[in-house]
């Protein structure tokens, strides 16, 4: 007998709901989006006894069914609509033993929806140290439900939960709150008009403007013949409802819960004293940031070299193992390097999200938000913008997605628009090679070298520009800014390794899915443009070059490099580079750099690889490229092409330019349209061009 049960997992944030979900589903998880909106949908499968399968939907964490954001809306949509494919047979509300009072608010609301509901009390391993004791049978009787005690951390209670889910039909669907108590006249009338529907559901339709069955707010109000209640009246009734629910909860807990304050240990208070201290809080935060960046810098070098080597080997192998022809070329020189260009960023992205995940799991992130909120708001951002801004130093794509928990649309939009200014990992190869060309290697004060100082300044420039732009956007964007900042400060916990790893995997997958396809596609297009050219010059490249160098004795390698370089010059992309030369000359670049800039539009890091080809370097050895670049002469001035002026100009260009099609794509998705990414592109490109121009003209 095989049966399928739909289960909805709901609960306050920070209750360990994710851990419960991970315990139930293991790696049988699927992450996607709800149709039509940018809210993450997490689903998984859990095998129950007796051959039954549970389809578990991990709904976004929320404090109440009265939605105040897009993802909280999703919760009501799923729970109200019997025709929704996700509509649950049983709801599992996850609560945390330390915050039972507040968690139960959501529980009583869900219990009133006519859905069999199980209450999970999680983190029971902390009960003793907090001096909490519960009379479970009494609590079950008061709440009219089945309670499962769990410690997701210690993996306790899973089997009991699975059994309870299996036996869901035994659960009562009596509501906790008699809604009529809120306002006798109004609610009695409401029930009389729709005797079939649970009263609370009708109330939600009116207050949340949700539709289900063929009921919506207007049809209810028409049918009941009430005056359409004013918004303020509705609000007052909602407040009354909340008060009544808490009265019920307080009475219930008074009878069933005892807290022995004397035995409660207060680690939280001591930690908070330091971590959000007026001075030390910030010092510690910046120290942690510094550590993270240094660690990422140090630890990712090795895997990145490995990946580089592996893809280079793969490319050569293809070229030698497969028959000569267009397809082989496409594979070896277009697809494989294109894929390599995506994969090489995975170590950095994975590590960054590893650290961010740990900060979130421990509860420290909320303290960061607390510390930074006031400062962020001066710039039109929210305290919650800190995480996306930091994530942007790995890659803007997961960073933009991380803005989903910002309540105010204006603050969220501004965060999305300025995140690309933060120095992402892809800019590093460009920065590094230019810096090594134009900045002296000397050190000041023993440990600080000019080169690393310049790099740090570039990072600060990125952040500074992000903040400045958000300040400007805040002033000029005419969007109503309704913000209410109510942030829970969860207790400190040791991070659960499993949760962290699953999170890292999910974020990395998001990067690959979001950026990977686009980078690959554009790499192939660029390869085509670089490998084919119009007219005779391209097709006869070999002959022409061989004839040109017939009087000089060249070895095969150098000759081949010269041919490649000639081909590139006369390919489609070469002509494009020459065409934009007048545009980039004032910035100190020549057409060769122009080609590199065009091709790095797919992904900034392609800049270095393209330069390698242009300067006819056989391999991508950094030293060789550097030497070649150092030797290049600017045709107009007769001096070095890569001098201080043009180098600075290039650095500034790459600092500001929006050269990442993947970012444009994700911004379009998250802002539901082309308008904002277009504005972003124009603004950033303009800024890049002008600052590069000014830098070059001023410094030359």
């Amino acid at each position, binding site marked *: 007998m095989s049966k399928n049960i739909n289960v909805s997992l709901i609960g306050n944030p920070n209750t360990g709901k994710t851990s419960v979900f991970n315990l139930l589903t293991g790696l049988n998880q699927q992450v996607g989006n709800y149709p039509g909106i940018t809210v993450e949908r997490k689903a998984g499968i859990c095998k129950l006894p007796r051959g039954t399968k549970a389809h578990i939907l991990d709904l976004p964490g929320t*404090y109440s069914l009265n939605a105040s954001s897009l993802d909280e809306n999703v919760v009501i949509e799923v729970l109200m609509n019997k025709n929704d494919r996700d509509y649950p047979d049983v709801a599992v509300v996850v609560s945390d033993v330390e915050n039972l*009072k507040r968690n139960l608010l959501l529980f009583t609301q869900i219990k009133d929806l006519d859905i069999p509901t199980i209450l999970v009390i999680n983190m029971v391993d902390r009960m003793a140290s907090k001096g909490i004791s519960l009379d479970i049978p009494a609590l079950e009787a008061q709440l009219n439900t089945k309670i499962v005690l769990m410690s997701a951390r210690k993996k306790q209670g899973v089997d009991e939960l699975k059994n309870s889910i299996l036996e869901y039909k035994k659960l009562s669907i009596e509501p906790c709150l008699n809604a009529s108590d809120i306002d006798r006249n109004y609610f009695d009338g409401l029930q009389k008009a729709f005797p079939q529907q649970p009263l609370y559901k009708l109330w939600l339709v009116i207050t949340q403007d949700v539709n289900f069955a063929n009921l919506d707010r207007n049809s209810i109000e028409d049918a009941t013949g009430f005056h359409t209640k004013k918004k303020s009246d509705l609000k007052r009734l909602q407040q009354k409802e*909340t008060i009544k629910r808490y009265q019920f909860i307080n009475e219930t807990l008074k009878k069933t819960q005892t807290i022995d304050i004397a035995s409660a240990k207060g680690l939280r208070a001591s930690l908070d004293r330091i971590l*959000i201290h007026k001075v030390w809080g910030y010092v510690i935060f910046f120290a942690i940031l510094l550590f993270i960046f240094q660690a990422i810098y140090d630890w990712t070098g090795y895997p990145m070299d490995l990946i580089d080597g592996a893809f280079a080997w793969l490319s050569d192998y293809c070229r030698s193992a497969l028959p000569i022809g267009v397809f082989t070329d496409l594979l070896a020189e277009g697809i494989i390097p294109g894929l390599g260009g995506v994969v090489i960023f995975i170590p950095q992205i994975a590590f960054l999200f590893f650290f961010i995940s740990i900060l979130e799991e421990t509860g420290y992130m909320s303290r960061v938000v607390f510390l930074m909120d006031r400062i962020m708001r001066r710039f039109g951002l929210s*305290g919650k913008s800190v995480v996306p801004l930091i994530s942007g130093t790995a890659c803007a794509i997961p960073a933009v997605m991380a803005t989903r928990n910002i309540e105010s649309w204006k603050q969220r939009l501004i965060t999305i628009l300025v995140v690309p200014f933060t120095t992402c990992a892809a800019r590093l190869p460009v920065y590094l090679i230019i810096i090594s060309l134009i900045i002296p290697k000397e050190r000041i004060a023993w440990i600080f070298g000019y080169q690393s100082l310049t790099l740090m300044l570039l990072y600060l420039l990125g952040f500074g520009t992000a903040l400045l732009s958000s300040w400007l956007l805040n002033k000029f964007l005419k969007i109503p800014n309704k913000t209410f*900042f109510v942030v829970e*400060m969860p207790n400190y916990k040791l991070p659960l390794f499993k949760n962290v790893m699953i999170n890292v995997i999910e974020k990395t997958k998001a990067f690959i899915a979001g950026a990977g396809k686009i980078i690959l596609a554009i790499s192939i297009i660029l390869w085509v443009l670089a490998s084919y050219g119009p007219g005779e010059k391209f097709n006869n490249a070999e002959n022409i070059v061989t004839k040109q160098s017939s009087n000089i004795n060249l070895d095969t390698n150098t000759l081949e490099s010269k041919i490649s370089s000639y081909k590139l010059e006369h390919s489609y992309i070469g002509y494009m580079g020459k065409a934009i030369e007048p545009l980039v000359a004032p910035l100190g670049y020549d057409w060769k750099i122009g080609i590199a800039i065009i091709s790095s539009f797919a992904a900034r890091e392609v800049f270095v690889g393209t330069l390698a080809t242009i300067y006819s370097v056989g391999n991508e050895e950094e030293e060789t490229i550097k030497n070649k670049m150092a030797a290049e002469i600017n045709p107009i001035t007769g001096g070095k092409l890569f001098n201080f002026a043009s180098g600075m100009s290039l650095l500034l260009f790459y600092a500001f330019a929006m050269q990442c099609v993947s970012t444009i794509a994700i911004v379009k998705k998250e802002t539901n349209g082309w308008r904002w990414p277009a504005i972003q592109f124009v603004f950033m490109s303009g800024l890049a061009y002008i600052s590069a121009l000014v830098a070059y003209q001023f410094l030359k």
Partner: protein
Amino acid sequence: MKKTLADLKRGEIGIIIGLITEEIPLKLLEMGCLPGNEVKLLQVAPFSCPLYLNVNDSHLAIRKEIAKQIEIELV
């Protein structure tokens, strides 16, 4: 003069007696800021915003503007 949450000093406890404005977000009540509940100011960020409170056994941070809308009585 009415005393509001914004007037609490660090470590002080008060009882919420009312909400001054209609515009208060429902979420605040749902998090436990209800008349009759005890609220203790734990810490304050620089420039006195946000405020870190313990209200109704929930640990929350709220901005000063909202704190000004919550009337309290010192205990």
